[in-house]
């Protein structure tokens, strides 16, 4: 273990009979952009709430910025930033007033606060809109203000819970550039997302499903571990081809991209499999080329095999 800013061991949280987080152990290195992926209700938000020190774990231990999450939540709160998809801004306050408020909440006052707010207005490009009420901003701008509010006290670690939900692609892109800037300056970022293109921008990823940690690693590692093979096909009868391919046990996913049929399978060459299966089904292949397996393919594969115990063994092999 080198320089971990988050360490958990067997972290658990139950709500009555429901197990929201079951036995999660992982660590995040300082300066990393760490993505947490998982379907809705997988326990991502519960995990984040425990790491922020606002929810006590039912079992296991965790350390965040060097403090125990159960015993020293206040010390943690001072040194982390937090942003959710709800962009918790005061809509009836201006951009600048929101920043000043959060700066005050984190204990900055007087000249120091003024200086910090000015600095942030400049660096985040919010200066021209400083007097605009937050409620009148578009989604992308709100997101920018929310992120700026979350880093107003220059925390070494920030938690972003689905920070790009419902924001346009251009804003998402500039948001991620800002995340990488922060990371380059040493800030650690833990982010949850449903967007796979965003997952690929993370240094490392964790897959969570039904409260369990299924895999951790760099995007490349996660994809490589699945032993996925992808083919991009153009066929005569797309629907017949899809039906025939989906029935094959080695096939993870068949999806349509315009005229192209994308086939992902585990442990076997996708083009060869397609040729065999489609010949048998009587569907002609017009063209075929190999594709690159993505994090999305890995995500679908993991989620699928996790739900089906018979397939689980093969996926892990």
């Amino acid at each position, binding site marked *: 273990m080198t320089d971990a800013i988050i360490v958990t061991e067997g972290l658990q949280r139950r709500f009555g009979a429901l197990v929201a987080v079951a036995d999660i152990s992982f660590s995040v290195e300082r300066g990393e952009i760490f993505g947490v992926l998982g379907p809705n209700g997988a326990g991502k938000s519960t995990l984040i709430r425990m790491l*922020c*020190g*606002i*929810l*006590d774990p039912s079992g296991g231990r965790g350390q965040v910025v060097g403090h125990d999450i159960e015993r020293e939540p*206040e010390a943690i*709160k*001072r040194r*982390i930033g*937090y942003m*959710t998809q*709800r962009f*918790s*801004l*005061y*809509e*009836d*306050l201006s951009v600048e*007033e929101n920043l*000043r*408020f*959060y*700066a*005050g*909440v*984190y*204990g*900055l*006052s007087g000249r120091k606060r003024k200086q910090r707010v000015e600095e942030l207005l400049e660096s985040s490009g919010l200066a021209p809109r400083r007097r605009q*009420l937050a409620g009148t901003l578009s989604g992308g701008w709100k997101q920018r203000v929310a992120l700026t509010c979350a880093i107003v006290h220059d925390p070494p670690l920030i938690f972003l819970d689905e920070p790009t939900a419902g924001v346009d692609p251009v804003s998402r892109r500039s948001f991620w550039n800002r995340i990488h800037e922060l990371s380059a300056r040493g800030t650690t970022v833990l982010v949850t997302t449903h967007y796979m293109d965003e997952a690929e921008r993370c240094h490392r990823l964790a897959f969570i499903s039904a409260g369990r940690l299924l895999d951790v690693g760099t995007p490349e590692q996660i994809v490589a571990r699945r032993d996925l093979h992808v083919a991009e096909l153009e066929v005569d009868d797309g629907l017949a081809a899809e039906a025939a391919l989906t029935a094959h046990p080695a096939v993870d996913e068949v999806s349509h991209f315009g005229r192209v049929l994308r086939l992902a399978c585990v442990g076997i060459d996708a083009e060869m499999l397609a040729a065999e299966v489609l010949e048998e089904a009587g569907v002609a292949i017009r063209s075929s080329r190999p594709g690159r397996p993505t994090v999305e393919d890995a995500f679908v594969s993991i989620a699928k095999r996790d739900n089906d115990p018979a397939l689980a063994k093969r996926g892990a092999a």
Partner: protein
Amino acid sequence: MSLSRLLAIAVKELLQLRRDRLTLGMMVVLPMMQLLLFGYAIDTDVRHMQTAVFDQDRSAASRDLVQRMVATGFYDVVGHVHGYAQTRRALRSGEASVALVIPANYEAHLRAGEPNQVQLVVDGSDPQTVSSALNTASGLVASLSGEQTRVALARCGVQGPAAIELVPSTWYNPELRTSVFIVPGLVGVILTMTMVMLTSMAIARERERGTLEQLVVSPVKPVELVLGKIAPFVVLGVVQMSLILGLGHAIFYVPMRGNLGSLYLMALLFISANLALGLFFSTIAKTQQQAMQMSFFFLLPNILLSGFMFPFAAMPRPAQILGEALPLTHFLRIVRGIALKGATMADLGREVVSLAAILAVLVMLASLRFSKKLA
């Protein structure tokens, strides 16, 4: 506790309040409207009751009786009726609320010194009219009888016993103006309404908007959040109170006989109790709408059971016990005591202690629920 964090929250709250013109306007206009409404419209003294006269005697004596009744100012003769059928009609149609029935032979019986009866029919569908009508009339008739007795005795050359005269002396509000009683009470009612509603809604709004969650992950402590949020409302409450008392003094001549400083001190205690209650509501309500509904629901027993409009002494025991649990009940006694009677804190010791006890319980309840709910 950090003063700068508390201040940041208070400043934010003030900024939001300033932007919310509607609420702010309501906080100022509402007390003024209620003041005028309650001050002018509510008058529990029933005067000028419409009276129908069924005079079967038509004598000098019967006319004298009617004259004397009109002279009290409580009865306005709206017409003469003939027969009980007409009397009934006059009362049923609402043309008259009181009917005076004078029997034939009224004067003859009076002269002869025989027992004499005069009937007063009163519309009992409004009980307040009844007591006013009956009290005035029986007083009048009693003194008339006494007078007749003395006249009769004098005629026989006997000096009758001097009548016992009751000399009423009404302190504090000699003209018995209802507004003098109502306006100080209004201070309490309006503070109850606005303080409970504003605090419960202010927290519910943060929960609805998701900003409460943002504050929970920040180093802000519940006590800083609570104090920071309610501080601006305390100021607002004091402004409202000054507005009502000032206007009440200017328009309705409501006196301020006691120490204004101790009244404000007590008002702070009362405002705090209401804010604590609003806070407690906010831990139960999930939305602003629920918070508002709860506040209104709470207001009704306050108006009915506190002694604001209906005399506390007339309420049945269980209602009184319930009333004693309301902060408003005690504050009403305090504000009326100080403003109208010039009472000191020592005079009002029992009320002050009760109010403080209620405050302590509410603060405990609110902070217990509040910190639990935050986590």
